[in-house]
C-alpha cells in the first residue's frame, strides 16, 4: 500500500512537472539550422493586416525562390505586441533572426548585451547608399541595422479649416504658429490636438524646440555624453511653455490618448474637429483608420515642417523623426543578413512605398511614394542638413521616460523649463 501511494505521488509529481516544463519548451523558437540542409530564418514584423501583410509574404516567397534551401518563418504582429514579445525574446535569449530596431539608446543597449549583429562589413553597399539615413543605427562607427523607413515629424493640418480661418500659408516661424492658432480660435476652431495622456506626443514639442534651439554639435554631444547642461535645452522648455500658455490645445488634452479612438489626438483632426497635430510619418495611415470611409482627411491633408524659432542655434531645416530598421540577431545564419539586405533593394522598397507602408530609404525608390503630403515630407527629410532621432529613442527608454514625464507635467502646468532639464539630467546620471 505504502509503496503504491509513493509511486503514485512520484508519478503525479513527474506528470505535473513535465506538463509545466513542456509548456516552457514549446515556447522556444524553431532551430535555425536543421539536419536536412534547409535553413530557417525567423522574421518578425508589424504589418499584421491587409495589403502590407500580403506584400511581406510575397517578399519572403520571392527570396525563398532565389535562395534554395531557405525557409522564412514569418510572424506578423500588432506593433505593441511585437515590442512586448521582442523584450521577452531578448530576456530568454531567443530573439528572432530578423527583427525591427528603432535605433538610438535602445539599440545601444541591445548591442551592449551582444544581441545584435554588426552589419558594417556584411552590408557595406546598402550602408553606402543609405548615407546619413543610417546614422541613428550606428554606434562607434559600426552599423547594426538597415533603416527601411524613415520619417520626419511635422504638423499635419486640415487645409480646409486653415482656409476657413483665413490662413493662406502654413506657418514658418514660431510666431506665425502662435498667430495661426489665434486665428483658428477666433474662427471657432480648436487649433491643435495633442495626446498628452500618452506623454510622448507632448514630448515631441520639446524635442523639436530643442532641435531648433540647439546647434547640431550640441545635440550630437548631448546624445553621446548624456549631458543637458547647454542653456538651449532650457530655452526649448520656455518656447513650449509659451505655446501652452497660448492654450491652442483640444479640451482635455492632458488625458487624451495619442491614437486610439475618434476622441484621440489623431481622431480629432481626422474627423475635422481640430485643425492640426504634430505627429510622425504614420499619421495619414492612422487618420485613415479612424474615419469611417477610410480616407482620413483625403485631399485636405497638408503637412508643414516644425516652424523655425527665432534666435535658435539649430538649422531650421533640420528634422526630428524616427524610423524602423531591419536588424539581424547575433547568432542568426548568414542568409538572414542576405534577407535583410534584400529588403533594402530597390524592388522591395518600391513595392513597400507604393502600398504606403512607410517612407522608403533606398534613394531609387523614393519617387514611388504616391501620397502628395507624404511626398512633401520626404522632400523635407532629404533636404535636411541633419536628422535627429526622437529623443526618447536616442537616449533610451529610461532617460526618455523621465524626460517625457516631466514634459507632460509642463503641459499640466506643474513644471517648468529648468525642471525638464534637471529630470533628464538626473535620469542620465543614473545611466553613466
Amino acid at each position: 500500500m505504502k509503496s503504491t501511494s509513493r509511486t503514485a505521488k512520484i508519478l503525479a509529481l513527474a506528470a505535473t512537472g513535465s506538463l509545466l516544463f513542456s509548456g516552457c519548451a514549446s515556447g522556444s523558437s524553431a532551430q535555425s539550422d536543421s539536419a536536412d540542409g534547409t535553413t530557417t530564418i525567423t522574421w518578425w514584423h508589424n504589418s499584421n493586416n491587409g495589403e502590407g501583410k500580403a506584400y511581406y509574404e510575397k517578399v519572403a516567397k520571392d527570396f525563398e525562390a532565389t535562395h534554395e534551401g531557405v525557409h522564412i518563418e514569418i510572424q506578423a504582429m500588432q506593433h505593441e505586441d511585437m515590442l512586448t514579445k521582442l523584450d521577452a525574446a531578448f530576456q530568454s535569449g531567443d530573439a528572432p533572426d530578423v527583427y525591427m530596431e528603432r535605433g538610438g539608446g535602445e539599440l545601444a543597449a541591445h548591442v551592449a548585451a551582444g544581441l545584435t549583429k554588426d552589419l558594417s562589413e556584411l552590408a557595406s553597399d546598402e550602408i553606402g547608399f543609405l548615407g546619413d539615413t543610417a546614422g541613428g543605427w550606428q554606434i562607434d562607427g559600426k552599423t547594426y541595422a538597415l533603416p527601411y523607413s524613415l520619417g520626419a515629424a511635422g504638423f499635419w493640418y486640415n487645409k480646409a479649416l486653415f482656409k476657413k480661418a483665413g490662413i493662406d500659408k502654413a506657418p514658418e516661424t514660431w510666431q506665425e504658429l502662435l498667430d495661426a492658432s489665434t486665428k483658428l480660435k477666433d474662427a471657432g476652431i480648436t487649433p491643435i490636438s495633442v495626446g498628452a495622456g500618452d506623454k510622448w506626443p507632448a514630448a515631441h514639442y520639446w524635442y523639436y524646440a530643442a532641435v531648433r534651439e540647439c546647434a547640431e554639435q550640441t545635440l550630437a554631444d548631448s546624445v553621446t555624453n548624456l549631458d543637458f547642461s547647454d542653456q538651449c535645452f532650457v530655452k526649448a522648455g520656455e518656447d513650449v511653455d509659451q505655446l501652452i500658455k497660448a492654450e491652442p490645445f483640444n479640451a482635455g488634452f492632458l488625458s487624451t490618448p495619442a491614437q486610439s479612438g475618434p476622441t484621440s489626438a489623431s481622431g480629432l483632426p481626422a474627423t475635422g474637429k481640430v485643425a492640426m497635430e504634430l505627429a510622425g510619418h504614420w499619421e495619414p495611415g492612422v487618420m485613415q483608420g479612424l474615419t469611417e470611409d477610410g480616407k482620413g482627411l483625403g485631399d485636405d491633408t497638408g503637412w508643414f515642417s516644425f516652424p523655425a524659432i527665432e534666435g535658435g542655434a539649430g538649422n531650421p531645416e533640420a528634422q526630428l523623426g524616427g524610423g524602423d530598421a531591419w536588424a539581424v540577431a547575433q547568432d542568426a545564419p548568414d542568409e538572414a543578413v542576405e534577407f535583410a539586405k534584400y529588403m533594402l533593394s530597390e524592388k522591395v522598397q518600391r513595392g513597400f512605398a507604393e502600398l504606403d507602408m512607410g517612407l522608403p530609404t533606398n534613394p531609387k525608390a523614393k519617387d514611388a511614394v504616391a501620397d502628395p503630403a507624404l511626398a512633401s515630407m520626404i522632400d523635407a527629410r532629404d533636404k535636411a542638413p541633419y536628422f535627429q532621432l526622437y529623443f526618447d529613442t536616442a537616449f533610451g527608454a529610461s532617460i526618455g521616460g523621465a524626460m517625457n514625464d516631466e514634459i507632460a507635467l509642463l503641459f499640466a502646468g506643474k513644471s517648468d523649463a529648468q525642471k525638464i532639464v534637471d529630470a533628464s539630467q538626473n535620469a542620465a546620471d543614473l545611466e553613466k
Partner: protein
Amino acid sequence: MIRIVAQEVTYVTGAAAETSASQTETARRAVGAGMTEKPQRRRAKPADRRKTLEILFFISPALILIAVFMLLPIIQAVRYSVYNWKGFGPLVDFVGLKNYARVLQNEVFTDAMIHNLIIIGGSIALQLPIGLGIALLLNRKMKVQSLLRTIIFVPYVLSEVIAGVIWFQLLQPQYGVIDTIMSKFGIQGPAQGWLGTPELALWTVLAVLTWKYLGLAVILFLAGLQGVPSELYEAAEIDGASWWQIQRKITIPLLGPTLRTWGFLSMIGSLQLFDMVWILTGGGPANSTTTMASFLVSEGTKRQNFGVAAAASVILFIVALILAVSYQQFVLKRDAQPADERIKAKKVKA
C-alpha cells in the same frame, strides 16, 4: 478582484497545509519525546505515516503551483531588485539597495502610496454605507427583488477593462455623454474633463471604482444577512422594536464578520489597484492618479528599469503583507476564534 479570489483560495489551501503539517508535527513530537506510550499508539504509526503521505499527495499539485507561480516569481523579483537591469542580458550590475532608495525617494512613488491609501479609505467610506443601505433595502421582501439584485451586481461581473473603456468614453470632455447631459441642464463640466483635471482625476477614478465594486459589497452583505436567524427578528418585533432599532441592534452587529471580511478584500484590492487606473488615466494627468502598481509597470515595461520596478514590487508586497497581517491580527482575529471561546471571552469581560 479575480486575482484576490485566487489568492484567497491559495491562502486557504496553504492554511490547510499548515494545519496538517502541524498535526503531524505534534504527532511526531509525541513519538520523539519518548513518552511512554501504549502499544496501540505505536501500532497506529504506519497509519499516521500513510495519512501524511496521502495529505502530501493531495496537496502537492497546489504546492507546486504555489512554488512555480508565486514563490519563484517573488524570489526572482527580490533578486532583480538589487541589480541595475534593462530586461535582457546577464544580471551583472549589482547595486545593492540603491534601487530601493531610488523608489522611496521618488515623489511619484510616495504620491502613489498616498493615492493607494486614499483609495482604500475612500472605497470603504463610500461603499460601506451605500452597500449596507442597499443590502438592507434589498433584503426586504419586494416584487422585483431578484431583478434589482442582478442590476446592482452587473458592474462587478463586467470585465474591468471593458468597464474602464466605457467610462473613459462617457467621461470625455465636450463630446462625452456625461458632459453632454450636464450641458443640457446648463452645467459646464470641467474644461479639461473629469479625467484631465489633476485635482479631480483621482476622485473620478474612485467614483468609477465605487460603481464597479458596490455590487460585490451588496452581494456579500446580502449573503451575510441570510445568516441572521429570523427568530431574532421575530423576538424583537414582539418586544416592540422598530425597523431601525432591529437593523441597528441586531442586523448590523451580526453582520460584523461579513463586514470585516469585505473590508479585508476591499483593502487588498485597493492596494493592488491597476487596471482601472491604467485605462482611465494611465496614472496621469500630472501623476495625480498613479498607484504603486501603475508606477512599477511604467518603470518596468515603459522605461526598462526592471531593477527599480522589482524594488517597487517588493515594497508593494511588503506594504500589502504588513497591512494584511495587521488587519488579520487586530480586526479579523475575533472572527477566527471558535464561537464558544468568543462567548466565554465575553462572559469573562462581563
